């Protein structure tokens, strides 16, 4: 086990923001300042214990959420650790301009998500027929495509930007919408007719992680080149 610097999230300076006192494993949350960029981090024992991952994930989420409820944040992934605070500061300094630009661009928006997937209810199709199975599968795929289209059409002006991505869990629709319009987003989605063979789940608001610039989302680390 060793001590490492765990990064939580970055946000723009704002003296009115309340900050969480403690985070993962009870470690005090610390703040790092570079220009108008602020970064929450903590010194933690590394690596994490697998049996504590659930708890660690919730604690990490709580810290990021605490700030995100007040202002836009750029979240780090839970396992983003640096050797020490100095390594973290060096990293942030290299990418400060890109972080600030993304935070300013995303300052008034949040990310909502809608995942569309085949209804897990047992199929009525004759399981012994391969042709029937393939036919049903094709119909579901077509229904999902149509549902994704219907959702986007329904969201209309609520949607600032959209990204659609296939995932194991289904087709995920990421939508950038103005902060404070999450309830409206949910209401609109509920009005979109859902075929019986499909299911969907809405979540959010989340930090706009899907809409980060490439330099911020997956920065190259100059010191490691």
């Amino acid at each position, binding site marked *: 086990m060793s001590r490492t610097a765990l990064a939580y999230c970055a946000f723009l300076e704002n003296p009115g923001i309340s900050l969480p006192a403690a985070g993962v494993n009870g470690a005090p949350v610390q703040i790092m300042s570079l220009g108008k960029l602020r970064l929450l981090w903590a010194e933690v024992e590394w690596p994490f214990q697998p049996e504590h991952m659930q708890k660690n994930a919730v604690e990490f989420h709580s810290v990021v959420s605490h700030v995100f409820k007040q202002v836009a944040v750029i*979240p780090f*992934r839970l*396992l983003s650790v640096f*050797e020490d605070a100095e390594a973290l500061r060096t990293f942030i300094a290299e990418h400060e301009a890109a972080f600030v630009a993304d935070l300013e661009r995303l300052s008034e928006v949040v990310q909502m998500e809608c995942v569309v997937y085949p209804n897990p209810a047992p199929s009525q199709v004759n399981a012994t027929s391969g042709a029937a199975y393939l036919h049903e599968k094709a119909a579901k795929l077509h229904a999902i495509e149509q549902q994704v289209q219907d959702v986007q059409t329904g969201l209309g002006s609520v949607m600032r930007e959209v990204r659609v991505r296939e995932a194991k869990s289904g087709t995920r629709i990421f939508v950038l919408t103005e902060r404070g319009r999450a309830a409206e987003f949910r209401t609109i989605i509920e009005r979109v007719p859902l075929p019986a063979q499909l299911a969907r789940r809405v979540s959010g608001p989340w930090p706009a992680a899907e809409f980060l610039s490439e330099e911020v989302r997956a920065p190259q680390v100059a010191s490691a080149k």
Partner: protein
Amino acid sequence: MAHGHRTLLFPMPSNFEPITLTEAGDGEVSLLEIIDHVLNAGVVIHGSLVISLAGVDLVYLGLNVVLTSVETALRNIHAEEKRRLK
């Protein structure tokens, strides 16, 4: 990339349950959604040196999200090479 190693290094414990948390004003957020987001959404750190040398047993450090200094990385590689030669 080392994305596939994530579940290997951090297997869900046997008592994993899809519990649901409630956040004021935000509706329900499931634990699975939280884990998905904290592990898969946001800044992912990967130094090219760490990635390119991952096959030389740096993966034990813990995925592409670990940032280590060049000195530390090289020290670990040399140690690993010595171990293999023994």
